[in-house]
């Protein structure tokens, strides 16, 4: 399958890239790793007239802890995340997620920024970043601004980015002591989208859940935090009974639709099981 025709642009920095986006006003798409965009272009589900390739834009690939957060450059690949010691030791939820994104070959090119900016409710990073209460940095012609992740996903494939803005950085609050997190996904086979997945990050103090962030993958029209499930965790003891009750809430709070990955009822059952296991694993990791 051959993608539609387009003009190809290779800006040398973010400013040039944003200027091109503004100039082509809705006719241009950003090309990062291309692992979602190129398949969509081959199916002609996307037919941008202009592609702006960020591969020659320097300084967008890094993973570093600074100023109270973990900063991840938007062009950091999933493979880089997967093999990073800070991620493995201090942000296990991100390691859980990268391990189950697509397959190892795709992860060599796929970028974290692309996974978010694509705003596909079937992608794995949105739920993880919602659970972690991350921020994203958007850079446009007139400078950059910080967008809380809760305000980023507006609809299926629709984000809060302005037409001339590029997602350049992801900021995750530094893990406090007593934090445990996990991401558990059920997929039919390696490389498939989730039947369902649950992301959780919690802070446990003296055996009580002090804070909780929960979100789910591919069981809602767009990525959104599960506030009822969070309320079912916060202030309660970190015990199996709490986790079972909160998992039941999650299975009711999600909004799956039946498709070739299973009917709605099955997906709710999958979420219940994954949520219970994810909550237990996160609590275990909090110790």
């Amino acid at each position, binding site marked *: 399958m051959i993608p539609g025709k387009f*003009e190809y642009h290779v800006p040398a920095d973010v400013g040039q890239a944003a200027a091109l986006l503004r100039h082509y006003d809705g006719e241009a798409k950003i090309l990062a790793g291309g692992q979602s965009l190129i398949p969509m272009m081959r199916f002609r589900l996307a037919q941008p007239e202009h592609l702006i390739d960020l591969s020659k834009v320097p300084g967008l690939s890094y993973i570093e802890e600074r100023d109270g957060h973990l900063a991840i450059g938007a062009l950091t690949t999933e493979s880089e995340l997967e093999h990073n010691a800070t991620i493995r030791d201090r942000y296990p939820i991100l390691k859980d997620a990268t391990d189950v994104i697509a397959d190892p070959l795709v992860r060599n090119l796929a970028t974290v920024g692309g996974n978010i900016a694509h705003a596909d409710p079937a992608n794995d990073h949105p739920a993880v970043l919602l659970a972690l209460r991350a921020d994203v940095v958007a850079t446009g012609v007139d400078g950059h601004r910080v967008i809380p992740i809760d305000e980023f996903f507006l609809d299926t494939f629709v984000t809060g980015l302005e037409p001339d803005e590029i997602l350049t950085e992801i900021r995750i609050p530094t893990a406090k002591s007593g934090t445990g997190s996990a991401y558990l996904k059920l997929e039919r086979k390696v490389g498939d989208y989730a039947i369902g997945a649950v992301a959780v990050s919690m802070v446990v103090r003296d055996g009580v859940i002090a804070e909780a962030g929960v979100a789910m993958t591919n069981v809602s029209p767009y990525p959104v935090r599960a506030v009822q499930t969070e309320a079912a965790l916060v202030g309660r003891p970190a015990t199996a009974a709490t986790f079972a009750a909160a998992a039941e809430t999650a299975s009711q709070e999600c909004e799956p639709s039946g498709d070739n990955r299973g009917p709605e009822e099955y997906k709710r059952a999958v979420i219940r099981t994954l949520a219970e296991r994810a909550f237990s694993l996160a609590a275990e990791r909090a110790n």
Partner: protein
Amino acid sequence: MSKVPVSMTINGETYSGDVEPRMLLVHFIREVAGLTGTHIGCDTTSCGACTIQLDGMPIKSCTMFAVQANGHSLKTVEGLATGAEMHPIQEGFMVNHGLQCGYCTPGMMMTSLALLAENPNPSELEIRTAISGNLCRCTGYVNIVRSIQYAADKMREPELAAAGQGD
């Protein structure tokens, strides 16, 4: 829409051409460079038959535009052998019957090459994880894993001999 000049090194040789930006890298490799060892299987970024190495990293060449590879160094299955001498990975696939129809084999071998460069002595699980983006419709995975293990052992022979563990 204008064509774009591209130039890249494949298996040590330079290949250049003016291409449409929408040309996929796998089409450049097969049709411009004439290296048809790299296969097109699913065309949906699923099967890995088109796996090549981009600067030493295995990627699916059906999911990259040729223009993105401009200035980069690629390796395809044709770059494995040295003259008439097979690479240990090729030998492994031959000795262990690691191919049935052979369609997935170039991709399997290019992924294996990257795995063994990074991890010379992988466990079976590590091998199976590494090739999880390469599909074999003949389902001949048992012998594919054996082939990679054979190559790992053979490639480590000089090192083991030097350490006095070889025989």
